[in-house]
């Protein structure tokens, strides 16, 4: 990524603790526009907490204390007045798919409707486009009225991706999306993400080192709430890592 690329997300000195227990320890990193940045690291490294700080879902965790800043397009997210508008700019996909208890169509139309977009023809177009983008449309086009919660796990995960795209977000955060998904679906979603990076900036938290290698432009290693190393994939997945632990983690020697 060249130095001229625009910084989409700027994180500086971000620390989070839950009831005194440190989850993130002064993380500073930038995410460039239209890149895929992947974050790898063992369980409990603070990866999910990091994502929760970007869309301020951290607010809903009662005993969380946040320090430092997260800026999107130069604006501090914690100064944002309308947190719902902020969240509409950031698509979020969780490890376990959560289909909302409503029809497939309504699942995808939910976010635009809540944002006040109710025009039927526009919604129809949008729902179809999002379902196509998430490679689900062909499987569900004849049963859009069925419950989203009754789809299989892999289909539900693609439904949540379609839902995340329905807000036409600038940033897409995925948190270990492949945990509940079969390998074939995982590959299909990976293809989708490669397509999407033309339009959105993607932060991909993954427990699969090979997934980071396949998809990302740059990869960051988190360990015990600290950023160990962040560099281009070329460096991270080579012997030339700046930190010995990165090499070891990528090689599967610990974690």
């Amino acid at each position, binding site marked *: 990524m060249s130095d001229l690329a625009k910084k989409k997300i700027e994180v500086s000195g971000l620390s989070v603790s839950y009831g005194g227990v440190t989850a993130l320890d002064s993380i500073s990193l930038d995410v460039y526009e239209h890149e895929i940045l992947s974050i790898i690291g063992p369980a409990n490294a603070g990866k999910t907490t990091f994502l929760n700080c970007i869309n301020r879902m951290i607010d809903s965790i009662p005993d969380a204390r946040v320090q430092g800043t997260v800026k999107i397009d130069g604006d501090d997210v914690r100064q944002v007045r309308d947190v719902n508008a902020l*969240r509409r700019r950031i698509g979020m996909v969780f490890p376990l798919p*959560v289909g909302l208890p409503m029809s497939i169509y309504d699942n995808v139309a*939910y976010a635009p409707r809540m944002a006040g977009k109710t025009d039927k023809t526009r919604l129809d177009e949008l729902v179809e486009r999002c379902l196509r983008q998430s490679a689900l449309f062909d499987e569900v086009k004849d049963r859009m009225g069925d419950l989203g919660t009754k789809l299989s796990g892999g289909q539900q995960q693609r439904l949540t991706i379609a839902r995340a795209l329905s807000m036409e977000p600038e940033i897409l955060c995925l948190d270990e999306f492949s945990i509940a998904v079969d390998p074939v679906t995982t590959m299909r979603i990976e293809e989708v993400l490669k397509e999407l990076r033309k339009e959105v900036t993607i932060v991909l938290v993954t427990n699969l080192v090979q997934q980071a290698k396949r998809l990302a432009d740059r990869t960051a290693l988190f360990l015990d709430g600290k950023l160990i190393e962040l560099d281009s994939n070329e460096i991270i997945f080579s012997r030339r890592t700046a930190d010995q632990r990165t090499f070891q983690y990528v090689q599967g020697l610990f974690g």
Partner: protein
Amino acid sequence: MSRGETEHTDFSATPMTEASHSRQKIARAFLGIATALLLLPLFAIIGLLVTHGMSAITAEFLLEAPTAGMTAGGIYPAIIGTLWLIGVSLAVAAPIGIMAGIYLNEYAPENWVTRMINLAIVNLAGVPSIVHALFGVGAFVLFLGLGTSILSASLTLAVMTLPVIIASTKEALASVPVAFRHASWTLGASRWQTIWHIVLPNSVSGILTGVILQVSRAAGETAPIMFTGAAFYLPFLPQSVQDQCMALSMHLFTVSTQVPNVPEAFPYATALVLLTLVVTFNFFSIGLRTYLRARRKW
């Protein structure tokens, strides 16, 4: 291995599995007996009421006012009075209780104030109804000057049923998975949009069940209405909430203990009508719950 030579030893019972089987049988027998004992008084009550009271249930009994010092005529004003009382108390308690339940479950921060409120609700639910009656006299009849009226009695019943309505509303809301709320917030929906579009549609059966069960409880109470609005005998029907009224539970108490020369079947018949009313509400609630559960979406 050809047919007929199949080995059975692997699945035959050892002394240990036989012992656990017999323990299982004993446990099952005791639990079954406990359930049967539970049903016994229920059937006994219904049987008693039907055998003693059925003969008195006529169109006249249901549709006319008592006459000749309660020893003849019917219980129509009491039926209407009970409907007034539960209607008005429901109109007060249901909206307040449901809204408070929503606030406590969806909005209230996790701190000591909230914990104190929750503790107060649990304790209020355990206050005896006669205490609510005294509170009703003091607060509504005297302090607010509402006098002995349907309004005072209904407000007293509302205060009595509120804690349980709040608690059952909270419980119904809490049964909706938190993951749905998180997914909705993440999509930029506000808290209220999430409650209205996700949480309430999926908890309405539980909320309504809790409300209706409290309605039938209110219908059967005597103490809270005795000093606040229920009349011993009224020759006319109430015209507004400022009037007093008769009530089934109060009437049952009256004809059982306060008036001489009442036909033997009258108290039983009154109780039978009250029980039928309550059971009807409960069946309605069960039906509603079954209907809404069947439409459950996850």
